[in-house]
């Protein structure tokens, strides 16, 4: 049995070369020439995903064009006992698609067809490489859309979304990937093709679709996804509210929910973020505000008018210092532009930034923000706070200069302390970016030995030989023991041009 995520010495070059030629000669007969890469100049684009700090060169990269090829590749690797790392668009932020040096990268990028769209049953069947936004674009003429909208939706694929259980800014009202996918077809590591879920509302046996969601490519390789489409709301409007105190802003979030309103979006930014993005996008934000809230309502014009009025009342009662309501779609998008561009804006004011993804119960938002302020002093690093306030998912962006090893070290410590605070406040280390390779040590904090052992039990149920993305997600007992002594140093985020979070 292979436990890849133990700390093992790197294999020597001769071993790697021998393994590579064994793998390549086994895969060549089943794949067209252009679908199998092993020369370093061809495989280097695959050495990392959206978290560029963690890199490794794989033995080879396979780009199958059919489900049958996926199944054959997996069967061959199963027999050769060569680990496989599945990869979608490579936009993931936790290193979940980082290669294994003695393994194969299995890219699903060529499986990118929308197979069918059925407006009557409000479903679409798509291959895993189809981009998230492409689904909504393909069904827009039918008055339908696919609800989960991770900020990287222009590039990220639906296969990746299933594996991360991606959310987005509208998931408070419309749910996560889990709530919007009916069926996943996939291939087990042994090459068996199976279906999880169904077009019917439930399936016989245990609910295995639920465990596939967010499984980070460790249980099965997704080859087809049936998504639920929903009717596009006729109208959306957003309120931009300023607060002169972070606590008041945080309390306003709780007050909106307590009033029985589920906004379509409920986002918060602190002063440092507001200033950074305003300079970048000129959205008209209040630069004196300590916190800014964006509250969106969608539905029929009558429904939106009613909800906007109720939310405005709550925000006023919560002590908002200024309230602006979008007059039209142009203004709505302008109000959102700052929030959606927090990342590139952070890139303008600092050499590097390290993005956290913890989630906490809403009532602790102000507590955590105050703690982060104290950490800024402790680690002598700045931090921009943007978050999905409606669901308590925080994205602190720690600013540092990667050229200074001590700053990166402090940024890592800062990040770890934030995640520990999230766990302590009753939350979790990752709301939507996944554990991948990046947060594998923090899993030792959030879960005890019994839970981690159960996770390995789940892993073994699907993949008894531990060959599918085996070094991600779940730390081994050994690894948790080593935690604290091990430090992986790294750097920057790939695809800085993408909107994120």
């Amino acid at each position, binding site marked *: 049995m292979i436990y890849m995520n133990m700390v093992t010495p790197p294999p020597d070059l001769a071993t790697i070369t021998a393994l590579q030629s064994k793998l390549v000669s086994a895969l060549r007969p089943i794949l067209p020439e252009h679908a199998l890469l092993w020369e370093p100049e061809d495989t280097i684009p695959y050495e990392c995903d959206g978290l560029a700090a963690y890199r490794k060169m794989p033995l080879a990269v396979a780009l199958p064009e059919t489900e049958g090829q996926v199944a054959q590749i997996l069967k061959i690797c199963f027999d050769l006992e060569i680990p496989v790392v599945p990869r979608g668009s490579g936009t993931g932020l936790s290193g979940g698609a980082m290669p294994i040096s003695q393994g194969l990268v299995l890219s699903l990028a060529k499986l990118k067809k929308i197979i069918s769209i059925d407006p*009557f*049953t*409000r479903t679409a069947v798509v291959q895993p490489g189809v981009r998230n936004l492409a689904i909504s674009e393909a069904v827009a003429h*039918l008055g339908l859309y696919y609800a989960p909208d991770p900020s990287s939706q222009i590039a990220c694929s639906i296969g990746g979304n299933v594996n*991360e*259980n991606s959310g987005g800014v509208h998931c*408070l009202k419309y*749910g996560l990937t*889990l*709530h919007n996918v009916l069926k996943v077809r996939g291939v087990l590591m042994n090459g068996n093709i*199976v*279906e999880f879920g*169904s*077009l*019917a*509302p*439930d*399936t*016989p*046996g*245990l*609910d*295995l679709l*639920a*465990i596939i*969601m967010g499984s980070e490519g460790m*249980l099965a390789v997704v080859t087809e996804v049936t998504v639920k489409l929903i*009717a596009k709301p*006729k109208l959306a409007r957003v309120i931009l509210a300023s607060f002169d105190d972070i606590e008041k802003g945080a309390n306003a979030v709780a*007050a909106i*929910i*307590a009033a*029985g309103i*589920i906004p379509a979006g409920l986002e918060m930014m602190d002063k440092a973020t507001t200033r950074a993005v305003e300079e970048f996008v000129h959205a008209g934000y209040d630069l004196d505000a300590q916190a800014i809230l964006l509250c969106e309502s969608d*539905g*029929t014009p*009558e*429904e939106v008018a*009613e*909800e906007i009025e109720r939310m405005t009342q709550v925000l006023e009662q919560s002590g908002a210092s200024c309230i602006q309501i979008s007059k039209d779609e142009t203004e709505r998008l302008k109000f959102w532009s700052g929030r959606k561009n927090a990342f590139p804006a952070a890139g303008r004011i600092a050499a590097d930034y390290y993005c956290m993804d913890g*989630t906490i119960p809403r*009532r602790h938002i102000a507590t955590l923000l105050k703690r982060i302020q104290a950490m800024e002093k402790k680690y002598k690093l700045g931090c921009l706070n943007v978050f999905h306030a409606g669901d*308590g*998912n925080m994205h602190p962006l720690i600013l540092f200069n990667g050229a200074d090893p001590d700053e990166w070290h402090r940024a890592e410590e800062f990040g770890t302390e934030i995640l520990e605070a999230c766990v302590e406040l009753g*939350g*979790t*280390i*990752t*709301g939507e970016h996944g554990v991948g390779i990046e947060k594998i040590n923090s899993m030792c904090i*959030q*879960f005890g030995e*019994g*839970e981690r052992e*159960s*996770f390995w*039990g*789940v892993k073994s*149920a*699907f993949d*008894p030989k531990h060959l599918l993305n085996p070094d991600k997600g779940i730390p081994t007992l050994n690894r948790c023991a080593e935690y604290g002594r091990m430090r992986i140093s790294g750097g920057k985020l790939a695809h800085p041009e993408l909107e994120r979070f």
Partner: protein
Amino acid sequence: MSNSNQSIHAFREQILNAAQNKTSLSIEGGGTKSWYGNLNHFEKLHTSSYSGILEYQPEELVITACAGTPLKEIQTALADKNQVLAFEPPHFGEAATFGGVLAAGLAGPSRISAGSLRDFVLGVRIMDGKGQDLAFGGKVIKNVAGYDVSRLLPGSLGTLSLLLEASVKVLPKPAATISLRCNISQARALLLLNEWAGQPLPLSASGWIGNANQDGELTIRLEGAIAAVKTAIPLMGASINMEELDPHLALKFWNDLREQELSSFNNLTADETLYRLALPAACGPLNIPKANGEMVLEWHGQQRWVKAPGDEATFALIKQIASSNGGHATRFRQGVNVDPLNQRFTLLTEQAHSIALEAVQARLRSAFDPAGVFVTSRLP
């Protein structure tokens, strides 16, 4: 030792004893759904002593409670704060518990619009077959740390682990509710319901009751913001004339539908079985041979109830009909003369695309329960 610690201690003892004696335990809450699933005569593990709401803060939209907590207690606490369990679980009896509802995994009339029971589960505390006290998931909506074990428990009928506590998402009670009714054929009802579901209308539930090839009674429920419900009525009225139901009658209807207390459900003869068919939205009217009396269609046709003889041949035929339409069938309730030992469910091995999952499922169960303490065959 506090009462709750005593309960946990007793659960562990009973589980470890069963493991040692190589026997199994049948978990029971209020016993209101003991007829559901395959029959077994194993010793009971009673959860009712482990009861109580542990945490409920309405602005967090989450409630955490012990498995033995009466469902009524939870719904009363939520109602006080104008919130609800949006998946509308059936009680099937006064004594229904929170844990029993989760283990059964059944949802009520709002299933298609609000989501399934498992969609609302955020975290669980369980005891596995080794007596380990484990926590998965949490109390927040977004959480992707580790495999989502908490959502494997709903619908597992106690065959994976003992559920100790769960945190579920709750929602505000809709501001407005209106129910409408008309007489219409099954085919036309299925067509209209799917068309409506594809439009931005606040359609929250539907029920069609009638004989297969005749007109039946379609009742629909609209729920949401006051303005949304008001504007929807004329829009839907453009397709068909519908009569608005008195709010008290409407409440009783949805309640009786959810609890299967309508006459169409409760006059099962001794040799009959009430079959449940779970089907894709695309499935039109089905001709079920030997079906007796009225059919009930819920969830815009995706959940159908039909009474027919309880013998193996009839079940095989109904399973085949469901399967060839992309769904599956269950023997939900059985008349007194029907063999209580028969298999109530469609098996993974009976569907081509899930054959390979049988081994996965068996390994999953043994990971949580190596000695088979919870392997009661209640759910195959």
